[in-house]
């Protein structure tokens, strides 16, 4: 399922009644099974773009499609993960991760079995009955990721999912993300402010301009898969990273 944005614009209403443009107009496509990273200066509308794709925010102008479906509400084949872990503090880890199944009306035994399997894959065995506040930041984000995976959509929208974590944990989790994606090859749109992360993970890096964010560069990352942490020292990687950085630096001049 292709994601297509056509002349999408979002503007917020400023307090004085004036209109404050936040995004676009912007047009691009994301192919099925593609892994796209969105980078850009802070406040350029990356999160706004993600919310439009998630169907949480109707665009002021233009259209967004997922395959043949107009995105005018949250679509079942699209899942979103936020920067803050966004777990329910009153639910155990197990119940948090099983939430999408619960909403979908899956029977309890199935929910429990699948949630336990997922926890095992995430190396969170033994934390089933823990509460979110008892987890470290990295563990909590893994639970949130597990929740997205259990939702079993074709498209994952990840809004700076590891932004609040330290560099080492972030790198570990990024690679885990690739592992978990595995052979099912979901389409992923990931927002990040970390250029290395973007280049390491993506098939394409899309650079947005300053507010209101427009398409500034669309760089194909032709590094081989599977990717690994030591790739960041290869000349190809460095060249691509430099290319992305140059685009962003242009903005600062």
């Amino acid at each position, binding site marked *: 399922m292709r994601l297509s944005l056509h002349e999408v614009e979002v503007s917020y209403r400023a307090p004085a009644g004036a209109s404050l443009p936040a995004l676009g107009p912007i047009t691009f496509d994301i192919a099925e099974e593609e892994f796209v990273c969105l980078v850009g200066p802070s406040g350029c509308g990356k999160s706004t773009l993600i*919310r439009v794709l*998630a*169907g*949480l925010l109707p665009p002021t102008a233009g259209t967004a499609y997922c395959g043949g479906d107009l995105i005018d509400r*949250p679509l*079942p084949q*699209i*899942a*979103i993960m*936020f920067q*803050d872990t*966004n777990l*329910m*503090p*009153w*639910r155990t880890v197990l119940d948090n991760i099983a*939430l*999408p199944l*619960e*909403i*979908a009306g899956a029977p309890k035994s199935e929910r429990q079995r699948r949630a336990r399997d997922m926890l095992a894959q995430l190396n969170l065995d033994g934390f089933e009955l823990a*509460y*979110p*506040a*008892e987890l470290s930041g990295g563990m909590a984000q893994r639970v949130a990721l597990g929740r997205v995976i259990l*939702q079993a959509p074709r498209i994952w929208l990840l809004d700076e999912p590891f932004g609040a974590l330290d560099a080492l944990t972030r790198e570990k989790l990024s690679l885990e993300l690739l592992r978990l994606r595995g052979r099912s090859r979901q389409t992923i749109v990931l927002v990040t402010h970390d250029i290395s992360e973007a280049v390491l993970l993506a098939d394409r890096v899309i650079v947005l301009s300053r507010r209101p964010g427009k398409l500034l560069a669309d760089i194909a990352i032709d590094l081989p898969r599977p990717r690994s942490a030591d790739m960041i020292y290869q000349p190809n990687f460095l060249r691509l990273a430099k290319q992305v950085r140059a685009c962003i630096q242009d903005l600062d001049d």
Partner: protein
Amino acid sequence: MALTPVALPRVLCLGISDMAEKNFTQAMQPQKSRIIVHGALLRRLSPVVTIMAMLLVWHGITEWQLVSRILIPPPAEVLDSLVKALADGTLAKHTGTTLGEMIFGLLFGVSIGLAIGYAIAKAPLLEYILSPIIVAFQSTPIVAYAPLLIIIFGTGPSSKIVTTAVIVFFPSLVNTIVGIRGVSPRLRDLMRSLNAGRWQIFRKLELPSALPVILAGLKTSATLAVIGAVVGEFVGSGSGLGVLVITARSQYDTPLVYVTVLTMTAIALSLYGLVALVEWRLLHWQRRTA
């Protein structure tokens, strides 16, 4: 603008002791566990110590006749009066009446508070429409218009149920509004992106998220319920603890006045305790993560 008068009592509803307790546990955490055990024990014992000390002071005052027996009867006389009132069924009968009025009053007042509170939290326009009425109702002393309620609803239990409902309505309303408005917008986004229905959003997000605040309001309501019922009974009634106080007072039976007042205190504390117990059961996650 319209929210401020309604939102203000939130701090009161959460309860000074709640806040104090939280600060206390936080302050204790880095310390050695033995000190915590010590502190917890002391804390658990302190109400008992306070009550014992009060009884002693009470006994002393009457023993040495520091204050006339007319004003403060000796504890022993109050105990005698309690035994007598228990034995002849007086206390049980009046307590039963008041408890019944309180429970129905709570049922009505709290559910209406929850319903209107939820509606206001979801539709801010409603707040603009309703808040003048609600704030006016809340700021008018109920003792002033209780006689009117007695005339409208009669001298039976229904008028006391109404006075109780009126008085417990407000904390439940305010805390519902505060609780529902406090639901994380990110979690709302999550529920929307999961295509959750209205009922699912209420049941799985709004209710559990607002529950701590709603229960804090319910604690306040539980203690206010006694006031509502007794105010109603004071104005005109045949039975109930308010009537018993007036009767005992009109017969200069001061020990019985004390017995009745202490019974009201006991009822208020038990109801508070009951809600606290429910809170303890429902919000165990908060203790784990405090």
